[in-house]
């Protein structure tokens, strides 16, 4: 496998609040390969946004605090740094788009100038050059009549068009990595399909890597090559998109799939919800974070955090079910060394 472009190791982030210290991210590691899309999945509050915001230096500190770990961009640690070799990381090396484009853009500046600002700051373009490039970028993001639209303000754009403008801004400096934090959650399915197609096209043209944060497994299936499943601030499973969907190795991943309706008219079985709710990260559990909701939990899960087991090349799960002395058989869970049928 090629050298990863971004390698995050054992990242831990805490926040001081009135109620105590929240351990939002508890030892997260992952790699992003060049030109690939990595999806980070998990429910609200599992730490997926905090993870990427900490890498981007967007976590407010204080109250936030990075307690361990590093994030190597082409081998150089970028945690807590704004520049490498005089070049900005944020906006230049790594671009980012957010869930809610309406509140992420400045309502008092026209769209073109907001995109141009990036180029003036990072690339030293003149105002005129930058605005001309902004129009090109809007055009690349498939906004019709880009020249006219560049002079309009955010309130004149629909949600889908605003997200396109955000993408134009994020790719202005040709970043190596684009982080998309729930980019389509606020959009309708038809507009979502347009935005996802646009991201795929841009990736094909520019060869950038994408980190896609989402809770929609349909979006993951459409976009990702690699998937990271997070729960309660930790990575519970990682693998290729086929590993995650067809060979789940962690009960939480399995539970997520069982909780969704299958598009099969014959299978009229009931949905299987995951009972309960995620643990309180003020006092994270001593053992596995998922054990309170897990139908297969054992005494060891409550006492000791599970190690990460390798199930096959590139497919790992942190679950005691994979320990060699475990005798509990869960047919739906994929174990190490099992045949892979594609």
């Amino acid at each position, binding site marked *: 496998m090629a050298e990863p472009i971004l390698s995050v190791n054992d990242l831990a982030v805490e926040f001081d609040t009135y109620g105590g210290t929240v351990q939002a991210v508890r030892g997260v590691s992952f790699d992003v390969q060049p030109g690939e899309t990595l999806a980070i999945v998990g*429910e609200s509050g599992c730490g997926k946004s905090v993870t990427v915001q900490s890498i981007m230096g967007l976590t407010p500190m204080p109250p936030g605090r990075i307690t361990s770990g590093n994030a190597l961009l082409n081998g150089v640690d970028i945690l807590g740094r704004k520049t490498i070799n005089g070049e900005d990381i944020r906006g230049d090396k790594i671009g980012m788009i957010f869930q809610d484009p309406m509140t992420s853009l400045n309502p008092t500046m026209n769209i073109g100038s907001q995109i141009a600002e990036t180029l003036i700051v990072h690339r030293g373009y003149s105002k005129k050059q930058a605005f001309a490039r902004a129009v090109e970028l809007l055009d690349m993001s498939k906004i019709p009549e880009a020249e006219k639209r560049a002079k309009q303000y955010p309130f004149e754009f629909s949600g889908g068009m605003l997200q396109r403008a955000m993408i134009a801004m994020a790719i202005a400096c040709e970043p190596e990595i684009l982080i998309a934090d729930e980019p389509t959650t606020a959009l309708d399915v038809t*507009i979502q399909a347009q935005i996802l197609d646009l991201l795929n096209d841009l990736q094909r043209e520019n060869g950038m890597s994408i980190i896609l944060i989402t809770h929609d*497994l349909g979006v993951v299936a459409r976009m990702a090559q690699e998937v990271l499943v997070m729960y309660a601030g930790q990575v519970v499973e990682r693998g290729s998109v086929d590993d995650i969907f067809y060979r789940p190795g962690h009960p939480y991943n399995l539970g997520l799939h069982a909780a969704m*309706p299958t598009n099969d008219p014959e299978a009229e079985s009931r949905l299987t919800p995951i009972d309960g709710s995620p643990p309180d990260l003020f006092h994270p559990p001593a053992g596995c974070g998922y054990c309170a909701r897990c139908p297969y939990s054992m005494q060891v899960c409550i006492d000791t955090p599970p190690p990460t087991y390798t199930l096959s090349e590139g497919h790992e799960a942190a679950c005691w079910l994979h320990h060699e002395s475990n005798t509990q058989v869960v047919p739906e869970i994929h174990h190490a060394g099992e045949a892979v049928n594609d």
Partner: protein
Amino acid sequence: MTDLIKIDNLVKYFDIGRDQRVHAVDHVSLEIGEREIVGLVGESGSGKSTLGKAVVGLHDKTGGTVTFKGKEMPARYAPADFQAHATDMQMIFQDPYSSLNPRMTVGEIIGEGLKLHRGLGNSAVRDSVASWLERVGLQADHMSRYPHEFSGGQRQRIGIARALILEPEFVVCDEPISALDVSVQAQVINLLDELKESMGLTLLFIAHDLSMVRYVSDRMAVMYLGSLVEVGRANEVFFEPKHPYTKILVGSNPEPDPRHERHRASTTIQGEIPSPVNVPEGCRFANRCPEVMDRCRSETPQLIPVNDVTEEHPREVACHLFSRD
């Protein structure tokens, strides 16, 4: 099966000044049978929530009628009408954060309807609230807490208990799960399903998650820019869509199946839903439709049955491709 609710040519316009009006719901007719779940899907701005609210009387009707058990409901609800119909129909709202009064305890929120409409005393209300809290998967001692102490899924359960404590026959669920995580969505859907079975509820289930609507509903209605474009059995509409808009809607829905997604042909639709202020003449979908014909731009297609018309609720499509003339 008899129709519990009959929506006939319902119209709801909002005047926004200077002779401009938003055509939020434009001549919608739909029947909902007893104990039936009808799913209503469409993009944001298509008028699905407005339709739901107009049916339960939260919006005055500009035109058309809603008939409940053969009795016509008022076009404009007076306070006494809400009083009279609260035990017939109720609504569950989308946002479990803004739809519960933060200054009332959960017991007051859920029990308010009983006090107002059934005139029960405090202790009887308390008993009933306690049993309903348990029925929706919460605990009786939650009644003295405030909404902020609950998670999104728990709040949605509170909203469900509030709507169902009066044992209505008909409930409009306006995107009851879209604010919730996947693992919690299934909890709420299963709860609704159980209550539907035990209470014999009839539901209008509004959502934009097509897979979930197909799963939940008996029949599905697809709405576009204030009008219905297709109505039929949920499985038929989802697996064999007929209207070009339904085809695109279903094709845009990403399925949690990477193999399927890799081989999926792109069905991306160009453009966005037009403004409901200046509704185009003819078919409302004509300017985005891949199969548009000349007559689509001048003649408005009506919902017409496309299969076995002897069925009680035939499959209906509003598209000139299916016109017989």
